[in-house]
């Protein structure tokens, strides 16, 4: 059994109103950072996964993401896996 580190990034889906992102973007623009745009505010979750190999780890991450971590009606997610020493 190996242990992997999974970094999961969750963002509001395109088309779903992201009020926090809008508020941050407005504030940035008001402070002269208008070139920094399209702000989306989401979540970052880091977990350790015990798995046979990378494919197994990926399956376990997507399973918990879809079961609990992410509400797929309003959120999308991506993840990166790294084998822990």
């Amino acid at each position: 059994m190996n242990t992997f580190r999974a970094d999961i990034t969750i963002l509001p889906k395109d088309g779903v109103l992201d009020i926090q992102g809008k508020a941050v973007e407005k504030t940035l623009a008001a402070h002269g950072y208008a070139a920094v745009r399209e702000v989306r505010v989401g979540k970052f979750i880091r977990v350790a996964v015990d798995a046979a190999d990378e494919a197994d780890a990926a399956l376990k991450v997507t399973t918990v993401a879809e079961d609990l971590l992410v509400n797929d009606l309003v959120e999308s997610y991506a993840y990166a896996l790294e084998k822990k020493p």
Partner: protein
Amino acid sequence: MRSAVVVFPGSNCDRDVEKSLLYMETGPVDMVWHDEADFRHAPDLVVLPGGFSYGDYLRSGALASKSRIMGAVRAHAASGGLVLGICNGFQILTEAGMLPGALLPNASLRFICRQAYLRVEQNDTPFTCSFKDGEIVQFPIAHHEGLYYLPEEELSQLEQSGRVVFRYADRSSGEAGEAYSPNGSLHGIAGIVNERGNVLGLMPHPERATLQGLIWGTDGRGLWRSLEEHFGAWEGK
């Protein structure tokens, strides 16, 4: 009518619901801890109360929707039993997939605690049968995540099937809709039922408008009265 009120860690309207049901003399009320596998006495009505279950961690209602008791709540609904989710309870029902949609942060990004006016859009449900069709009622709201969201196509299906039960409204004109959403809810939606009509979720708090002497009025009684009418008066009353 026998009621079960589920208590999650962080629920804070559970006692208010219990007091309201007892005040209305609807029958016995069982308080059920979320970690129970089943109800000790088979309920007619299950209430998921308001509050901040699990501190609203991850997403409001997400962790509570995985509680052990939710298996029994699902089974109760699947057999046609009534389920009422108020505020955080509504959020739990959407997270559990028992009602469509999601409750997003209020458009103002503020916690809103105030009275709200609602138009009763459907009075042919067990939860609203004692209200007049189109009646304007006053229930308070207190939430940070109350913006009802559903993708456009599903939203129009929800509307066409008449499953919007409460809509935010203007008290004097009686008009209802998005313009009157205190929280930005699409179509001004404050409460909906599932396809079968036995699961209701609403953000406003009828239990805070039930007891005499509270500042929010007593319009909430209509909801408990509806349930009583639906079941007929409790025999032991």
